[in-house]
C-alpha cells in the first residue's frame, strides 16, 4: 500500500469514527429528552450515579477546593495589587475564577474519579457478557446504562462547579480583607457589579457539556471492549484520552463564544 492510500485510509477511518460518535451522541441526547426513558430502574441508576459522583466525593472535594481555591485567590489578588489593577478585582473573580477555573477544576476532578470508573465498569460489563444479558431481557442499554449516567454527570458537574465557586468566593472574602483591606460588604458589592448574565449562561452550558461528554465518552469506549479481559485497559486509556481532548475542545469553544 502506498503512502497516499495509507493517509487516505487513515483519514477515512477517522471521519467514520467521528460520524459514529456523533450519531451515538445524538441518539443518547434524544433518549435523555424522552420522558419514557425514566422508569423505576433508570431512576434508581440516576440517583446512585448522582450519589457516587457528587455526594460521595463531597468531603474531599470541599477540602481540595478550599485549598486550591484559596491558593489561586491569594496569588491572583497579590498579582492584582502588585500591578495596581485592584479596580479589576471583580472582573477577574467572575470572569476568570468563577466562569473558567471552577468548571475546569471540577471537571478534572470528576473525570479522574468517575470518568475512569465508568469507563472500566462498562468495559468489564462487556467482557463479562453482562451487556448481552441485559439485552436478552430486552433492557435497552442506552435507557438503562447511558441516559441516567450522563444525566447524573451533567447534574454533578453543574452542582459541584457551583459549590467550587461558592468556596472560591468565600475564601475571597478573607483574602480581600488581608491583601486589600476590603470589608465583606464592599467585596460582595464588587462581585455583584461584575456579574455578567451571559457569562453565567456560558459557564452553565460549559458545565453541562463537560458533564455530558465526560460520562458519554467513557461509556462509548467502554462498550467497545471485546470479550477479552485484555481489552479493558486498551478501551479505558483510549476513552480517557478522548475525554481530555473533549474537555480542551469545550474549553476553547466556550472561550470563543465569550470573546464574540
Amino acid at each position, binding site marked *: 500500500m502506498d503512502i497516499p492510500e495509507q493517509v487516505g485510509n487513515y483519514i477515512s477511518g477517522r471521519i467514520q469514527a467521528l460520524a459514529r460518535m456523533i450519531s451515538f451522541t445524538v441518539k443518547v441526547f434524544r433518549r435523555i429528552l424522552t420522558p419514557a426513558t425514566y*422508569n*423505576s*430502574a*433508570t431512576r*434508581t441508576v440516576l440517583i446512585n450515579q448522582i450519589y457516587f459522583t457528587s455526594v460521595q466525593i463531597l468531603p474531599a472535594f470541599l477540602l481540595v477546593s478550599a485549598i486550591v481555591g484559596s491558593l489561586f485567590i491569594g496569588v491572583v489578588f497579590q498579582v492584582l495589587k502588585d500591578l495596581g489593577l485592584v479596580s479589576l478585582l471583580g472582573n477577574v473573580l467572575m470572569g476568570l475564577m468563577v466562569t473558567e477555573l471552577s468548571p475546569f477544576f471540577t471537571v478534572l476532578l470528576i473525570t479522574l474519579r468517575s470518568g475512569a470508573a465508568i469507563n472500566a*465498569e462498562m468495559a*468489564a*460489563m462487556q467482557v*463479562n*457478557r*453482562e451487556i*448481552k*444479558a*441485559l439485552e*436478552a*431481557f*430486552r*433492557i435497552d442499554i442506552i435507557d*438503562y446504562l447511558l441516559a441516567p449516567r450522563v444525566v447524573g454527570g451533567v447534574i454533578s458537574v453543574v452542582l459541584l462547579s457551583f459549590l467550587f465557586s461558592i468556596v472560591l468566593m468565600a475564601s475571597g472574602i478573607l483574602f480581600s480583607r488581608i491583601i486589600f483591606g476590603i470589608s465583606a460588604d464592599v467585596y460582595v458589592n464588587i462581585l455583584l457589579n461584575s456579574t455578567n448574565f451571559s457569562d453565567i449562561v456560558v459557564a452553565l452550558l460549559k458545565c453541562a457539556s463537560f458533564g455530558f461528554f465526560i460520562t458519554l465518552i467513557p461509556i462509548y469506549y467502554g462498550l467497545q471492549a471485546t470479550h477479552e479481559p485484555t481489552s479493558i485497559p486498551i478501551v479505558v486509556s483510549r476513552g480517557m484520552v478522548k475525554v481530555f481532548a473533549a474537555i480542551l475542545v469545550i474549553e476553547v469553544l466556550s472561550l470563543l463564544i465569550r470573546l464574540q
Partner: protein
Amino acid sequence: MTLFTGEEALDKALRRFMRARPRHAAPVSAAMPLISNQEAWLNIALIKQYHENMRVEESRKMVLGLLRDIGLEKIAEKRNPALGEEERFYAMLLRAAMVEKAAIVIDRPFKMLPHLKNFSAVMTVLKTIDGLYASCDIYDYDWMKDKYGALCR
C-alpha cells in the same frame, strides 16, 4: 425438555427460541450472567422495575418474599462473585421468572451446576415458583439425559 447432539444445534435452537418469543423469552444461561455490581435481589427486581415500572420498595419486598420461599433469603444482598453456584443459578432462575408471561429456557443447567447429581432439586424450586412463569423448557445435550431421570421418559 429438548436434548441435542451437539453445541451448534443447541445454540441454534436457543437463538430460534429467543427470536420466536421476542417479548417473553427468559433465558437462564451461563452466557447471560447476573450484573456483578448489583446485589442479587436487584438483579431479579430489575426486570419488574424496568418493564413494569414497579417501585423499588415494592419490587424488593416481592423478591425477598420469593427468595424466602426457596430458602435463599440470605443471598439477597450478595453480589454475583460472592454467590455459590446453586445460589447464582436460582437467582438467574428467579430473574427469568420476573419476565411477564415468562417462557423460561434453561440452557445446559448442569454447566452451571456441575456438582448436581440429578435435576430434582431444580424441579422442586420450579414447582415452588410455578405461578410466576408461563412455560419452562430445558435445553441440554442428549448424553446428559440420565441426569434428568423421569423428565426424559
